[in-house]
């Protein structure tokens, strides 16, 4: 038996350093992979979308995986980001790259507006954000606002299109989102978020400022969605409100994150690459078959592996090592 005073501390420190190293690999490997992505796969737009979705899945990771609040209306931030960036670029004439930050700001603004929804819990929170996302969409697409948002007729960013810049922007954005998750996961902030998720009031009695930390996590998630929407809009060039305010965006991100496994750095990335890969292989030519496979995957996931691929893998490893320990002793 390990003495808690003697052996505990250094061992824990070592373990922590090891997980941090593994987590940083989970940032480096996808970033390196996507840097050379065009060598393996020639559809640049799909790779950009995939990077955006990796980041979005990690936004869900921060919001749901660490705090337990599932934002079904995540697409509201995403669409707001696309429009925020577009308006900044077309009306304020900021450079496109800078416009992406405006997208993040738009996402954060919508996120701040929705903060009162945290009075709700669980499924109610999820649905209320869904309604809020639809409401934001309806407002942006409203014909009465045509002079500002061009109403239902969408936007056109062809004047600032630049495939190289877009690819690099998406890559940097994904890297930052992954780094944010690593920071959250390995910090006291992340620990406190997990405590809040387990028991909000106990966390408060442990001195954690629940409202502040939860809002901070929410704002990070909103910023990721905002920038994601901005890059998505830039890459898509011509888009209608229904393309950026699409509840399928939330659901993709949620399912990618859950499929891979939330609370980890690898999970949502793996989930996105696999499922979005499947989508690009099957979904584009026959979307209904993809929707079917995808729906069945969700059902199977929730019923048989609610902790996702990573959770599944961990359980398998644990079982294996238990068996080995059993054989040895």
């Amino acid at each position: 038996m390990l003495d808690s005073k003697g052996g505990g501390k250094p061992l824990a420190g070592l373990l922590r350093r090891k997980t941090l190293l593994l987590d940083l690999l989970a940032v480096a490997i996808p970033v390196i992979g996507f840097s050379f992505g065009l060598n393996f796969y020639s559809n640049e737009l799909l790779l950009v979308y995939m990077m955006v979705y990796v980041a979005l899945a990690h936004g869900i990771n921060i919001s749901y995986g660490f705090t337990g609040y599932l934002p079904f209306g995540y697409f509201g931030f995403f669409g707001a980001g696309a429009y925020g960036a577009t308006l900044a670029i077309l009306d304020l004439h900021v450079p496109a790259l800078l416009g992406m930050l405006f997208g993040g700001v738009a996402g954060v603004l919508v996120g701040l507006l929705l903060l009162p929804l945290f009075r709700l819990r669980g499924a109610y929170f999820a649905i209320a954000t869904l309604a809020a996302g639809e409401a934001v969409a309806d407002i942006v697409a409203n014909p009465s606002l045509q002079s500002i948002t061009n109403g239902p007729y969408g936007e056109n960013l062809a004047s600032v299109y630049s495939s190289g810049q877009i690819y690099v922007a998406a890559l940097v954005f994904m890297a930052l989102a992954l780094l944010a998750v690593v920071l959250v996961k390995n910090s006291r902030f992340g620990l406190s978020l997990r405590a809040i998720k387990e028991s909000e009031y106990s966390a408060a009695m442990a001195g954690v400022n629940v409202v502040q930390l939860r809002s901070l996590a929410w704002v990070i998630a909103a910023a990721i969605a905002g920038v994601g929407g901005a890059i998505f809009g830039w890459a898509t060039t011509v888009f209608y409100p229904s393309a950026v305010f699409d509840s399928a965006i939330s659901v993709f991100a949620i399912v990618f994150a859950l499929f891979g496994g939330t609370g980890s750095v690898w999970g949502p990335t793996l989930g996105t690459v696999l499922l979005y890969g499947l989508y690009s292989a099957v979904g584009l030519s026959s979307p209904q078959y993809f929707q079917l496979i995808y729906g069945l995957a969700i059902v199977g996931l929730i019923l048989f592996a609610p902790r996702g691929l990573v959770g599944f893998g961990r359980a398998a490893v644990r079982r294996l090592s238990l068996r080995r320990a059993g054989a040895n002793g």
Partner: protein
Amino acid sequence: MADEILRLEGISKHFGGLSALQEVSFSVEGGEALGLVGPNGSGKTTLINVVCGLYTPNAGNIYLEGAKLGKTTPHKLAKSGINRTFQVPQPFASLTVRENVEIAAAHRRGDGMSVVEILDFVNLGKWAGQEAGSLNAAQQKRLDLGRALALNPKVLFVDELGAGLNPAELAEVAAMLRSLLNGGRALVVVEHLMGFLDKLVDRVIVLNAGREIFHGGLRSALDDGEVKRVFLGTVGA
């Protein structure tokens, strides 16, 4: 005379039509352990929940070291020195035992026991690296206690820490709690087990249906007619 740490004045709490607390008043001093007893549903846990900010009282005031507590949040109360354990323990199940205590220790103002010292104190050192959810109920209650202690509270409410323990464990817990009184800390101990309280507290408040029906020494409480009637023989337990 020791300093007053916490004072309640006329605290009332209703849930819909139910009066869970009616004009409850008392105070505790530094270094003192106060017993809070009463039959099931008499409002003991509700009282803790009110003082520790989970519920807002419908009436009454609370003073910490003479300063009135206005409308505040649980985490501020925790930082300013009021803390508690839970009748049904609520550890952060997926965090390790050590992390459970570390989270609280990170928010401590001033100094106090280190995380390792706390884990040793509540006898959980051996389990430090284990997930809190895998502990048994008695261990989880001690973890609750450790987590509360990590904030070095001036007044600590303990909600039925002794329930379900055997006599040897009870004696150990009583000793543990008594040692917490050093350094001017105040304790409010909710407990059904009179033998346990007898070793620990000087004074008790007896609640029934949200009302204080007795206030004084434990021995004289046991002789009080109304207290006897309310407990209907559970006193002997």
